């Protein structure tokens, strides 16, 4: 990047950051951009906590005997899963980047329900406090899946408190999704037709559908679970006539679509990055947009692929297997379209684009190994082994976290009004990529060799691969810490960002000042062209 930083004449122009100071102006704000930052800091905190649990796990697995007690390890992976899934992955891109960008991208002054948006953050924090309290009170050891009857009858840890934390946080997710749906339907600027929406917005629309329709089911399931723990009346307890498999059906009815809550927003970010750094309109806009919706819809019909060995009828399994292959098609469509977008483009390699490359690579591997697991005869051997762990970390961490970091770097100038240090950023992206693959690739091999998940101790022949994985994890950890440090530094000391450092298209770069004022636009925006019209010069400001 060779952009020179012109000194801005309106150096101290009023924006959403300097309009007001003091803790009240943050904790009582209804500005979607400030709420996004509240989310950014709380989500980063949960990422650090969840990451610390992961460090504990990888440390334990360096030796076959395990460094910690079995119970300690069981609590570590449970807390890691719960915090990362419900308090990091699910809210991350929607609540931070989505919150910040969706109103600006569609030309609105705020989300449709600004106070509900603030409420959702408070609900999220409350749910988080429940869960953190449970962790400090001694933790919980059910696994993030809370399978009955272990969770209802046998575990003597803080199941109810943790379940309530997840229950509460669920409402934060529902409210965010609801807010997005209404905003996208009702708040678009003149000229911003559905066919001109940025794909980031499309993917959040699809995500919101899942959040709104799926989350209530996990909420009520956790209520039943907690009631059962108190009453011991047998709703999921086979000894009393209940059906533990019903719990699994209810749980995965949400939790499988939830993985699309986690990945779809990441796909939205990538759909912004690739056109920008290829200076070219997205290839197959309609297909990329509708594939998001297709994923959301089909994603609701595949949950049974988690129960291939749980005694589900083989005909039900067959249908779920077929639908699981079907849901891979829209994901494949996206990957092909991104690749085609680069064809005859003008590609540059700033940090966000490096993360986009990383995303395509790792998501492709994560997606294809998903096909391995959708193949029933292979799933029999591989389910509940490290192969599954590796698969969903390739999608969630390799895909989603890569997209999150790419998005954070891409919109950092927008959010903070500063530039981050490009050299450090490229270095960190490389470290993350190498560390990630070293951590999780060996786990595919471990999985096929038969190492089951959630084992605090393992057979000696698995040690070599486990040590590789732990070594990779330490590199990955460093890779995540570097951006936190330089972004924190750049927020105060980075060079002032120009209006549009990437020459990107979209209302947020072209019509909203950097950083935006409280109501996002100085003059009401009007949209006159399709999204990603990179063939014409964008104002470089």
């Amino acid at each position, binding site marked *: 990047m060779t952009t020179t930083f012109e000194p801005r004449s309106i150096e101290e122009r009023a924006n959403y950051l300097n309009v007001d100071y003091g803790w009240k102006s943050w904790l009582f704000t209804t500005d979607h951009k400030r709420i996004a930052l509240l989310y950014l800091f709380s989500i980063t905190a949960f990422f650090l906590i969840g990451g610390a649990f992961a460090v504990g796990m990888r440390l334990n697995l360096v030796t076959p005997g395990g460094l910690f007690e079995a119970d300690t390890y069981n609590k570590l992976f449970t807390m890691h899963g719960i915090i990362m899934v419900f308090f990091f992955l699910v809210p991350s891109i929607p609540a931070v980047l989505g919150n910040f960008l969706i109103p600006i991208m569609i030309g609105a002054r705020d989300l449709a329900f600004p106070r509900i948006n603030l409420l959702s953050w408070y609900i999220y924090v409350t749910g988080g406090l429940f869960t953190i309290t449970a962790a400090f009170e001694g933790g919980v050891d059910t696994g993030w899946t809370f399978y009955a009857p272990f969770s209802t009858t046998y575990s003597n840890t803080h199941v109810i408190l943790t379940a309530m934390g997840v229950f509460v946080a669920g409402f934060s997710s529902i409210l965010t999704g609801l807010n997005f749906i209404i905003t996208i339907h009702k708040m678009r600027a003149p000229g911003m037709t559905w066919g001109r929406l940025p794909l980031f917005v499309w993917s959040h629309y699809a995500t919101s559908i899942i959040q709104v329709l799926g989350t209530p089911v996990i909420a009520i399931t956790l209520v039943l679970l907690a009631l059962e723990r108190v009453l011991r009346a047998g709703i999921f307890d086979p000894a009393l006539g209940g059906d533990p498999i019903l719990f699994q059906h209810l749980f995965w009815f949400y939790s499988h679509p939830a993985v699309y809550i986690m990945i779809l927003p990441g796909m939205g970010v990538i759909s912004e990055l690739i056109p920008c750094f290829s200076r070219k309109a997205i290839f197959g806009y309609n297909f990329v947009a509708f594939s998001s919706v297709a994923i959301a819809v089909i994603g609701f019909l595949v949950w049974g692929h988690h129960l291939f060995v749980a005694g589900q009828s083989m005909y039900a399994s067959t249908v779920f297997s077929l639908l699981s292959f079907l849901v891979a098609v829209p994901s494949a*469509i996206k990957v092909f379209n991104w690749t085609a977008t680069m064809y005859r483009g003008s590609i540059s390699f700033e940090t966000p684009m490096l993360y986009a490359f990383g995303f395509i690579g790792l998501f*492709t591997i994560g997606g294809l190994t998903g096909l391995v697991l959708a193949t029933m005869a292979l799933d029999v051997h591989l389910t509940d082994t490290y192969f599954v762990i590796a698969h969903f970390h390739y999608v969630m961490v390799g895909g989603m976290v890569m997209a999150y970091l790419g998005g954070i770097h891409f919109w950092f100038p927008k959010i903070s009004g500063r530039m981050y240090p490009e050299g450090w950023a490229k270095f960190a992206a490389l470290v993350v990529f190498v560390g990630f693959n070293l951590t999780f690739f060996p786990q595919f091999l471990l999985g096929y060799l038969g190492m089951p998940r959630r084992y605090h101790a393992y057979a000696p022949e698995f040690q070599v691969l486990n040590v590789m994985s732990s070594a990779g994890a330490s590199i990955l950890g460093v890779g995540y810490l570097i951006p936190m440090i330089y972004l924190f530094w750049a927020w105060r000391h980075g060079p002032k960002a120009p209006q549009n450092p990437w020459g990107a298209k979209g209302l947020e770069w072209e019509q909203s000042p950097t950083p935006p004022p409280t109501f996002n636009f100085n003059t009401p925006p009007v949209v006159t062209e399709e999204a990603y019209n990179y063939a014409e010069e964008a104002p470089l400001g």
Partner: protein
Amino acid sequence: MSGLSLFPPNASTTAGEVDALYSFVITVSVIMTILIFSCVFLFAIRYRRRSGNERPKAIHGSLVLEIAWSVIPFAIMLVFFAWGTKLYYKNYVPPENTLDLYVTGKQWMWKVQYPGGQREINELHVPTGRPVKLTLASEDVIHSFYVPAFRIKHDVVPGQYETLWFQATTPGRYHIFCAEYCGTGHATMGGWVTVLDPVAYEAWLSGGASGGSMQEQGEKLFQQYGCVTCHVLDQKGRCPSLRNVFGHAVALDDGRTVIADEAYVRESILNPNEKVVAGYKRDIMPVFQGQIGEEGLLQLIVYIKSLSNPASTGAVGKAVSGKAVSGKSATKGSTK
């Protein structure tokens, strides 16, 4: 066993088939990955930005390409699906004339019972060259019985029987793991399956005999709990005779029909009033819920099986089919 081999030992008839399918899926996936990666690399290098003023022309899409890269991958996936489903079905339904062994999981051990009465904990001995069917029961939470060398796994769900079958091919000792998280000792809830050739297996069986075969132990329980007075000797019609019942269709008092399989017998012992045979009264037989352990139940079932004609004991493929069904689908179930 080298630390860096890609496949676990191959010790069952299924293992090779699963490995073949896996190799196929992985190969196709690697080709797809290489295809995508080379496009990305090629484009990234070939079309790298050479000057800041470049404004490439927009290409908005191509319907032909979109259809091609939706349909072709899906067609390939259908091959995965068809192959995987065929193999899954084959591994799902046990063949005839299996050697039946009984495995009970509890926190945190596997207890194995042999028809001859031998018992083991965390050890399973099986012969080569003969299909072995395991009936799996759990005393507490959900476990999962997993032998990587056989490429088989099945959850062991409390309150119902699950079955699993395999045919071992290579003598040796292989891991048994619990694959479904079950609490503190989950990681140590494992053991070894020892595969012996048939001659060695017979020798091993004769060495380990104990207090009677499973059938004899079941008969003992049958007398001890007083079942025998009504269900075999008594002909006054208070309760149905158990001769020639197992594996047959039974008409219930509410008009439904069930197949008397392991699951139905289990339910009828623990909760006799749930599905009462047509023509008999409720509340005559005591409820045995909480009175008999899972292992005792399995012994009783083996005994009750023995009261039926051997010809009819092919029974039902899937042990969970004891749920009441309407007459039509019940007969369909019995043909499995």
